[in-house]
């Protein structure tokens, strides 16, 4: 199924929850609402015409204009087609609905995005830091992150 068909189908089904799309990009992407990601992803996975059963990658991104985002690279083992979904939230209210109930692999990817960007995934079963220590201050992959001078009273060497 082409990106255009996927977009048309999603738009017809979910209306305003599906935002802009760049279907002529190197890898076409569709923006979706951050409060309805689970519903949309569930539909994409379960509907036989799409059957996106494989979540290749889930990445947090800091767009540096006050927005944080999450990018989902979906793939279908059955139909062998791909699509990229994007969702955005603000720095002040960094909440995005979790999709770990749809794909098990999203669990750790979302924990990583939470760890690195401070994006809170609502309804996530076990949202803890994964790579940094539990008491690490701040979110290191945000563009405005500054390495703290001290960490738990220890001088950070650079």
């Amino acid at each position, binding site marked *: 199924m082409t990106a255009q068909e996927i977009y048309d189908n999603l738009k017809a089904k979910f209306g305003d929850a599906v935002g802009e799309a760049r279907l002529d*990009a*190197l*890898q076409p992407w569709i923006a979706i609402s951050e409060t309805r990601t689970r519903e949309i992803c569930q539909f994409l996975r379960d509907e036989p015409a799409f059957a996106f*059963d*494989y*979540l*290749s*990658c889930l*990445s*947090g*991104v*800091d767009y540096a204009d006050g927005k944080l985002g999450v*990018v989902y*690279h979906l793939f279908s*083992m059955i139909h*062998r087609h791909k699509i*990229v979904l994007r969702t955005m939230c603000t720095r002040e209210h960094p909440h995005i609905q979790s999709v770990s109930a749809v*794909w*098990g*692999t999203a*669990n*750790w*990817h979302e924990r990583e995005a939470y760890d*690195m960007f401070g994006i809170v995934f609502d309804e996530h079963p*076990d949202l*803890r*830091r*994964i*790579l*940094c*220590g*539990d*008491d690490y201050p701040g979110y*290191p*992959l945000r563009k405005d992150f500054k390495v703290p001078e001290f960490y*738990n*009273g220890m001088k950070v060497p650079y």
Partner: protein
Amino acid sequence: MKESRTLPTDYVSSPERTSSGRTLRTDEMILNMGPQHPSTHGVLRLELVVDGEIIVDVIPHIGYLHRCFEKHAEHMTNYQQVIPYADRMDYLSSMCNDWAYALAVEKLLKLEIPERVQYIRLIMAELQRIASHLIAVGTYAIDMGAFTPFLWCFRDRERILDLFEMTCGARLLYNYIWVGGVSHDLPPRFVEKAKDFCRDFRKTLKEVHDVLTYNEIFIKRTANVGVLPKDVAINYACSGPMLRGSGVDWDLRRDDPYGIYDRFEWAVQIGKGEAGTVGDCWDRYMVRMREMEESTKLIEQAVASIPEGNVQSAIPKRIRPEAGEVYVRSESPRGELGFYVISDGTASPYRVKARAPAFVNLSVLPEISRGAMVADLVAIAGSVDIVLGEVDR
């Protein structure tokens, strides 16, 4: 000013609850395996909830080797400088990491790669796959109590490292595959030595099959243990031998082609449940063994037909891709290694996300270990073949 140090107490395990918030029943206790434990293959801590010898739950704790690959990549002054850092992610298959990253940047630049470079990359990646699988198989044998195959595996891996050393001077972290080309052309006598290696390596494979694969004890330890069903494997986005061991006929080299894999004759190997159930530890082991055979075939065909040419003609002087983003994946020895690169039109990447196969494969460990014995967990964790450098990046 008084400095306060408060740990978020929710996250700390206690005799009553695990760090993920599970309350223990009377019969259950927490057992920590790692971070320093020979069978975790690196600094991985597994927090086990056990009821006697039976595993009720596993909570992996990772991050001990976190070296901020993604942050480093954003702070480089150009795209080429990321490659040495990519080397250090999965330090047992550096060639494949380099290639995966180079593929992503080349796609952003829409670069054409010379024929000779394509052949060299394929030969290097397949040699690396054999070297990496040899470690996987060798250390797995040690985990199961067999010492001899380990030595044979390392003996043959050494010959591959010698080949890499004579090509680029490094034995482990190569910085060899660059965007648009490779750092050195093949040295004289490389082709000859690679052919010799392939011929001798077949014998080693047969020896390992004889002493380990069909060994009664080994089969008892691995067959029907840690069964990963097909649908769970796909739901957890497992890849590489993990996914193929569960009987999914899927290999990115064939199904999302890159390089020149489509020109050669080779087959994707999948688990068939010969010793037990499809998707058990033995199947994952066997897929690796058979993949080494296929890689040998690929190397033999490639060195026989490698064309002449300049290996550095396509390396761009200045890398400045147009603004855009790309996710490119390739088949590393552990599975789908993807790089998501965002370019903002400047000389350094805006964001690089590495989708590490070992990280994703490890996340399925709790699913396949519940109900197993503690000793079986060693077999299960070994069959996942994690490299902690890649899990933590």
